[in-house]
């Protein structure tokens, strides 16, 4: 709102001089049209948008706008994967954009954590931030005391301008890694050279489908029509999961597996496939290295009895799915991300990969060991790439090169606190809510309180904002230009600015521009981020001939007519050109061995249950939210007003817990108290609560979660993943 006091001749002045008023307007002004009130409403305009959340589906959306107001959103019928429908989160978007809870203006908190907020102008915000950056640079001789933590709140390509903001001020400290899927990425990197899944629309061609730790009904609903079509054609759907999920409830066969033993099940299946000679020897031997060595291991070390004992899956079921999977031709496997969030998670994925190879299902339409891909992400990352200012001092890495200082995103609190030369003094958080999503929330709180200065860019008042000095209001994707690719389907879509940014919200690139202007005004040459260009011009700079060719377009504007599907074969690896050092599937991976891992996809024991904390506490993705996004909205709070912990009735009885009892869940790290829901969807030694950020609630599963690394992730993502599901606790009535 503009508060500058301006004196206008009122609107009536346009009608007749005798009607002039000398009323002093502050918030109203002349309407450009003399008869505006008689004009009909603007015709409804439609825009193309893409949901930018960290989600398999990355849906194409049609946004309906009337009189500058977003009226509704629908799935884009031209998007072959979204196919005209959204999920419940997608349909709730107008409620996110127009929620009265949105952060509207730059605000400053004094002191941090007090709840004492004052509204400040963008100029004051930028001045405060710029002066702090320059002060730290002067005191420490570099910008390394400034640490960026950005991840998946918005996966739009232009949003990599957040990293560009940091690059443009000098070398900084960066939270590196991904909490979501790195162990599985490394597993497929060792095996195939990278992660590269079949087109999910190709699942219609599968004759047998195994969803391995994958709850598509909650986290990728647009894949279900393709799975259902395959089933209509006769395919069988098997779901393997420690929890009887919504997806599992739809399956032809649900297998409740002991957590973290998926590799044992795959090895048991492999043994039975070998014993019955259902192996596709020709494919495996022609396309892989070390296959026979692995077969020998399986024959020597694996028995069905062992696999059954380890996994809790009856032997006859292991034999049934082994036979069916090996003989269906083609058979598809979808490896979910929850499955690899264990200390042996990456290794389990490697074993499942080997199962796909041994049955000849890799490189086949209707087959694949499908995990995800990054094939369609070859943009310029123009907003991300900025040279440091002249004279910038960086961190000298192990390779002797000067650059940013990388710390582990998955042990953020510890790694920030551990830096001493120089220490981290300032945090910049964008597209990220470590207060709710990082492990060991107590450590996060402590680390935040040790900072000199914290800046957060966000749309809602979450735990991280609560711990900040300054919060800057972020635009939603309807108020910004961007382009979005998916890590699951093969479509790429443009995101148009459908409505003007509300209040004083700005995009990350606009914020970078403002910061650059301020820093250079204070100290010329201190920031290299360009200060010109409209949001659409910034978008245009992300495209290149490779992307044009892949999408069959000559100009990004063609995407306004509809999203485009990358011109790629439906089956990944169908050309047999694997990207490993040997150019073959590496069942025997020297790279894995070099990294201290088994060369072969052999069994690695799961984490042992500690005696003191005998109950596994699993905290998977929620139905009504995506991490800490969406659950705070009114629809979600109405439908799912409070968190609950799911407990098997037998386990509950042991602790005197009944339906609705408040339960304290605790371990050495911390505790949470949450209402019990008794259900047989989980097993007797596993309790389940879904990670989410509820409005006006301090519920956070991560108070009990240690930053235990998963076994893989370093090779491709810089840091190992997190063993989110190897969290052990005790429970009692609260």
């Amino acid at each position, binding site marked *: *709102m503009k508060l500058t006091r301006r004196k206008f001749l*009122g609107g009536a002045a346009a009608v007749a001089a005798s009607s002039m008023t000398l*009323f002093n307007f*502050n918030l109203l002004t002349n*309407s450009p*049209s*003399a008869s505006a009130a008689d004009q009909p409403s603007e015709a409804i305009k439609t825009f193309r948008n893409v949901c930018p959340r960290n989600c398999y589906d990355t849906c194409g959306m049609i946004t309906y706008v009337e009189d500058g107001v977003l009226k509704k959103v629908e799935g884009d019928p031209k998007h072959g994967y979204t196919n005209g429908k959204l999920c419940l989160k997608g349909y709730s978007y107008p409620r996110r954009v127009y929620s009265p809870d949105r952060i509207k203006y730059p605000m400053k908190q004094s002191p941090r954590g007090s709840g004492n907020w004052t509204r400040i102008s963008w100029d004051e915000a930028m001045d405060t931030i710029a002066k702090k950056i320059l002060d730290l640079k002067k005191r420490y001789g570099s910008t390394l005391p400034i640490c960026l933590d950005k991840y998946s709140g918005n996966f739009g390509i232009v949003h990599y301008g957040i990293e560009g903001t940091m690059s443009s001020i000098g070398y900084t400290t960066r939270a590196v890694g991904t909490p979501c899927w790195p162990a599985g990425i490394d597993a497929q990197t060792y095996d195939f050279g990278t992660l590269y899944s079949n087109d999910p629309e190709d699942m219609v061609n599968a004759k047998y489908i195994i969803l391995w730790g994958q709850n598509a009904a909650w986290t990728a609903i647009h894949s279900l029509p393709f799975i259902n079509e395959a089933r209509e054609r006769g395919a069988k759907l098997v779901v393997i999961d420690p929890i009887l999920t919504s997806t599992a409830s739809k399956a032809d066969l649900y297998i409740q597996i002991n957590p973290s033993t998926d590799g044992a099940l795959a090895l048991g299946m492999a043994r039975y496939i070998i014993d019955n000679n259902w192996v596709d020897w020709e494919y495996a031997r022609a396309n892989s290295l070390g296959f026979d060595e692995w077969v020998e291991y399986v024959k020597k070390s694996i028995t069905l009895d062992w696999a059954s004992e380890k996994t809790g899956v009856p032997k006859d079921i292991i034999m049934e799915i082994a036979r069916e999977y090996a003989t269906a031709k083609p058979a598809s496997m979808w490896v979910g991300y929850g499955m690899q969030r264990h200390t042996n998670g990456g290794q389990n994925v490697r074993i499942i990969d080997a199962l796909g190879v041994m049955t000849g299902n890799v490189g086949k339409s209707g087959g694949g060991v499908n995990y995800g891909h990054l094939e369609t992400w070859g943009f310029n990352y123009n907003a991300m790439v900025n040279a440091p200012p002249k004279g910038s001092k960086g961190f000298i890495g192990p390779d002797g090169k000067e650059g940013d200082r990388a710390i582990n995103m998955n042990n953020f609190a510890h790694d920030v606190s551990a830096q001493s030369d120089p220490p981290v003094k300032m945090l910049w958080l964008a597209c990220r809510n470590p207060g709710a999503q990082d492990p060991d929330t107590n450590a996060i709180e402590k680390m935040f309180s040790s900072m000199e200065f914290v800046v957060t860019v966000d749309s809602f008042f979450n735990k991280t904002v609560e711990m900040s000095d300054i919060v800057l*209001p972020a635009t939603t994707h309807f108020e910004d230009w961007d382009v979005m690719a998916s890590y699951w389907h093969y479509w790429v879509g443009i995101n148009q600015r459908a409505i003007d940014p509300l209040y*004083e919200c700005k995009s990350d690139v606009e914020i970078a521009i403002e910061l650059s202007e301020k820093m250079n005004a204070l100290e010329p040459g201190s920031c290299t981020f360009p200060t010109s260009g409209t949001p659409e011009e910034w978008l245009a700079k992300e495209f290149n001939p490779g992307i044009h060719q892949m999408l069959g377009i000559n100009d990004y504007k063609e995407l306004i007519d509809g999203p485009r599907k990358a011109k790629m074969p439906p089956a990944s690896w169908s050309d047999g050109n694997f990207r490993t050092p040997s150019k073959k599937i590496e069942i025997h991976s020297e790279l894995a061995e070099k990294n201290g891992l088994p060369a072969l996809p052999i069994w690695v024991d799961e984490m042992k249950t500690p005696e003191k904390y005998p109950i596994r506490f699993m905290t998977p993705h929620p139905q009504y939210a995506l991490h800490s996004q969406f659950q705070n909205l009114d629809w979600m709070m109405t439908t799912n007003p409070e968190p609950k912990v799911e407990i098997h009735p037998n386990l509950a009885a042991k602790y005197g817990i009944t339906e609705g009892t408040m339960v304290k869940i605790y371990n050495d790290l911390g505790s949470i108290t949450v209402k019990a829901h008794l259900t047989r969807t989980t097993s007797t030694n596993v309790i389940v609560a879904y990670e989410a950020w509820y409005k006006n609630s301090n519920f956070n599963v991560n108070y009990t979660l240690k930053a235990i690394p998963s076994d893989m992730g370093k090779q491709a993502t810089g840091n190992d993943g997190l063993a989110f599901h190897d969290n052990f606790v005790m429970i009692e009535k609260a």
Partner: protein
Amino acid sequence: MTFFEDCPPQVLKTHGELLLALSHLFAQGGENLSQTLSPLVKSCSAIAEHYNTSRLLQANQILAQYSETNDGEYLVMCYEFNRLFVGPNAPVAPPYESVYLSSDHLVMGEQTLAVRKFYQRENLQTIGQRHEPDDFISTELEFVAYLLSRIIETQAAKNSAKIQLYKTLYQEFWQQHLGLWLKTFAHTVSQSAKHPLFSALSEILVALSTLNAPLNTKEAPYETYAPQISRRSSSRCCL
């Protein structure tokens, strides 16, 4: 009862000043209470004395007390203002009509567009159109203050057609907009206020609403932000 009949220009002017003082207070935010409180106290005193309403007088005394407070107290009041109306937390009493009256309880609802149309009837639009909801409390208050100023001007000019036009506009706007949500908003504030200033402010909003309420005004039911309160029929404005 016909609206505005027999109301002396000076009383109308005082009303307008109160409306504008409230508009400024909400528009300029918690950070500027030291500038916006005194004009509010002044205009409120005049209204309270004219109608001799004890609740308004009492509320205004509290306002007067805090309008002369120290910087530290102003800061406390600023924090409370932002907690109630601005954020960055989910504000307790968002100052936008459609949050209270639309079935969706969101901003930029049908009321926002209806208010926009109302402004357009006078060839006006909000300075922050499409960025700030048109039904922001300050803008609505400024608009009715403007209409009141037009009534005074046209009365002075003895332009009976225009007098009636602006009286009708004023009445319609109260009946269709401000009058439907102001008390609900005020009640939400009073339910949650942690500082006496805002309880007093709530009283003033209720009084303003009551003074302006024509007989046939119906208050909207509200579910989200506060329980229903009954409308007082006493202390009616002479307007």
